[in-house]
């Protein structure tokens, strides 16, 4: 029971979402679903990141009336992973949007959403 802590659970969720996302990325033939898989992969990483910064029984890293300013370092969770996640989420959106625009353009050229039809170059 000791191992079942909040951060362990969320970490496990994160890892599983990563794997599910990769599974989708690697097995689905539909371009849009591949992008979905990638988005899930990203989300999973974000969950892992946030769980790493969590500290049991602490509050959000915002110094307000509930948090004593002088003892803040013993009261709040780690702000750094959260800051990193913020950045990562936005980057992830940028990449997802780019992927989707590629999908759109690929579809316009070949009228197919099946990735196996896009082996234009090989070897």
């Amino acid at each position, binding site marked *: 029971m000791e191992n079942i802590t909040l951060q362990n659970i969320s970490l496990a969720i994160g890892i599983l979402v990563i794997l599910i996302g990769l599974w989708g*990325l690697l097995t689905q033939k539909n371009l849009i679903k*591949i992008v979905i898989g990638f988005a899930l*992969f990203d989300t999973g990483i974000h969950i*892992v*990141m946030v769980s790493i910064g969590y500290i049991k029984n602490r509050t959000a890293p915002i110094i307000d009336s509930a948090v004593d300013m002088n003892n803040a370092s013993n009261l709040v969770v780690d702000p750094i992973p959260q800051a990193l996640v913020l*950045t990562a989420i936005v980057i992830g959106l940028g990449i997802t949007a780019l992927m989707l625009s590629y999908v759109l353009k690929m579809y316009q050229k070949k009228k197919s959403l099946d*990735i196996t039809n896009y*082996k234009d170059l*090989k*070897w």
Partner: protein
Amino acid sequence: MVGPIYIIAIALGTAFSLGFFKNANRNISFSLMFLAMAFLTFISGQWLYAFLTQQQETIQIFTAGFKPPFSISLQMGFHEAVFLTMINSLGLLSAIYLFDHLREKGVNMMMVFMLLFMGLNVVVMTRDIFNLFVFLEISSIALVGLIILEKKQDAISSGFKYLIASGVISGILLIGIVATYYYSGSLYINDLISANLSLVKGGSVAVFLIMIAVILELKPFPANGWALDVYQSVNAGIGPIISGGIATASLFILYKLLPIGGDAWLLPIGITGVISFLGSNFLGIKQKSSNRILAYSSISQVGLLMIIMSLSTSLGDKFEFVFFSVLISQYLAKAGLFWIAGIINKDEIDDWNILKKSPGLIVLVGIFMFTLLGLPPFPAFYGKWELIMNLSQSGNFVWVGIILLGSLFEAIYLLRWFGKILIKQDNLEDLKIKFHKLIPVIFVSFAILLFSYLTAKWSGLIGIKYYIPFIIALLIFAFDFLPVFIKNIAAISTVAWYSYVLIYQTYIPENDILRIVFGSIFLIGAIIMLIPGFTFKGKRQGFYPLVILMFSGLAGLIEARTTFQFFFAWEIMTLASYLLIIRGKNAVKPSFNYILFSMAGAFTMFAGFGLAFAETGSISLNALADVLVYANWAYALIAIGFLVKIAAFGVHIWLPSSYAEADDDVTSMISAILIKSGVFGLIILMLSMSLKNAVSPNIPYVLGWIGAIGALIGNMMAIYQEDVKKLIAYSSIGIMGYILFALSMMSHMGWLTAFTYSIVHFLYKGLLFLAIAGVIYRTQTRNIYEMGGLIKRMPLSFISVLIGIITLAGMPPLAGFAGKWMFYNAVIMKGWYLQGAIVFFSGIVAFLYCFKLIHNIFLGPLKDNHRKLKEASIWWLIPQFILIIGIMVISVYPKIVVEPIGQYLSMYFPNDGLVWDGTTASTRLGYWDATKIMTVFAGMFGVLFIILYSMSRKTQLVEQFNIVFQGERPERPETTHYAHNMYAPYNKALGFLTAPFITSAWKFVYESIHSISDQVRKFYTGNGQTYAMHIIIYVVVFYLFINGGF
């Protein structure tokens, strides 16, 4: 100085503000972007300058007003400055190159272009690992944008593959970064290095993820399919940005983060590099698309750089030298080739012969390719040398083998490509070259030349006098517009001056007979063989620089005191001779064989030198004598290099067609002179190594057999040739067999024979080729059966050939007999009777082709279309006379040559020498007096001549065509000619000896390599998903490899 932080400010500010200009004149926005790129280059260049000249200290730049680890900091040190200067100047040049594309595509693409370089700059400078991640993402996203600069279908799908693959990689990197943060509490790279994360279990996995992601960013073989597709599909202007910008920055990331992994990571990175280097080069062999070849080559070079990086500790203070010489030459040359590919705008390398119309570009392509191959005098040569020496010294012989093998594969595809450029083809389209695309190409070629000079200076391996030939060659190249006549005079006088300095001023005073003999063959021979050049009309562009380089390489062999200098000169000579041969009309394929064999031979020689260095720790040629433990291997490996050059049996197949297809005067040069470089090398090698007991006597024994068989097969092949140049070429193989055999006897007489043969072969082979060339020049054919009766039209040539073949056949009274006489003495003394018998038999065979030469060309009825032929030009005849004089002098008075050589050899072989008494030379087996023989022969000849001359009045002229009585005109009239297929009957008896099984064997090897390469590359399925899969498999396998389990 302008602070490095302004790089970010300027680049971002410009990119953001370009948004204001979306509807404005695109020239304005382009100028803004260009100015910004120029400023970036200026900032980094200025720092580099400060580091180089002013002992500038490495500085840290803090952002946000806090010190690290609390805030993100950047670092500007010497290495950063080098990398940034490389990246930014590439950006500037790329901007010039892509001028029309960027202008046409508009502001968005300009922003993307700028941001790519901005990202790379920060990636290089930052000391914060997450910041590195963010800016790496910027660069890769920007690249995704540039991929679709042209919205082609294949570019779009390869862009998607790239997105998926780089998405997966950056995901892995991100997990690694966060986990590293968890285990160390910091994102500051210096903290991570000192945190010793590898000690914690999870920490080591975190480090693993970071390192593997960085390695994957380098596109290691085989998890790199997406990158190859991108390379192939993008606009050629983007290629350099990937290989010279992104890959360079990624290498720097590896360099920067390597300390986090610690020394434990050196070996895995080295192995990754080895696999990439060998694998990519291997798969490159089968490629036909120029961009894809460049992609494979880029990846292989990155692999090589990874190897170098993994050796950073053992390379010690040589590391920077090796790393940067390879990195920068690859960076410059690759950019140049990509840009030229863009100018040509043809994907298939078969279409590259469009360049035929722009010889200037061909020269540039050559410079770039030879730079990539690490041939001298280009920078990577020095780096590779140090690398191989170091690897050998640390006992990594397998790695040496792999690197050399990989380099050979690379040579195969790059040189085959180079050959394709030179293939002649009619009605080629015109090449439209936009001026702005040419600027960067020319710029990098100058940068290569400058950097070559700097590396040579930095290396300290060669002295200033090694630059002189290059300067002369460049000078001649600069004055290439002058007519042949002037350039020929210049070339002759240069060589004459040099031989005066070298032989007369240096070696004659030192009485160094070996070097006097070979120096004279090389340089005085050069003067003689250059004389026919006067017959050529026009400009003969590019010929003279190459000739100068070839002879300087030969002279360099004579002068070399270290293995490095020797190898340097060897490669220069090989490269220049390759380029001379390839100038011939149909010489592309033969010259490819030549260079391929030569390079393979050079690489084994290289490995041999490495072995020697591993044992003695010295690169002095004299130190070869101290090699004991590795003696057999080193000896054999080095010898292979020389055997290739003398076309010893087994590696001879390059020779006949190369000789045949080269220009006529080039053939004389290579056959009479160049081939002796191998003999010289063997002598040097044997003098220092064979005489010690460390080398097993079996090796010379085997060499003796190779020589004997070579003599037989060469002569056998010669008799069946219809092509007169091939005939003489095969006879060269035979003679080289004699020489090899003689040398391998390791006795006084054997060596005396070899020396004498070398001189005599030089004389008569030059004579024969010159005379025949004169004939070919007049008759316009090389087929023997199309000649005949030329004695009437070309009597002087006839005399030359007559003297030539008498000497060749070793008949008294001419000098060839001296050689033969000594030869048999040597064989009998050594007791190699069986081999001796083979060689003796092959001597008889030689009579057959000698007869064929003189009879079928000069005797018999004159061909109808040859009735008006003139004697060969005076410029062909003058050198022949000189050579005849040489033959005569040696024939009459061999003592002047043989005695000093004998004295010299007595230092090494004190026993069983010739004893001279007046003009009589004797051994314990017999004696011989050339002068007397000559007198007697001259007397007999005089008598015979008078008799024959007096009878000649009575000869009856035969009607020319009365020999044919058939009623029908034969399908191929030449087959009825008696000279056609002359020795076919012998073929029935001895045909098995001339079956082309050596050729078939090599062909089999070559084709197997190709088909394996073709099969292996099939795992690049072209499916982006599979590529992503490769990445994950790579990660898992790598993990298993490192940890031996989960």
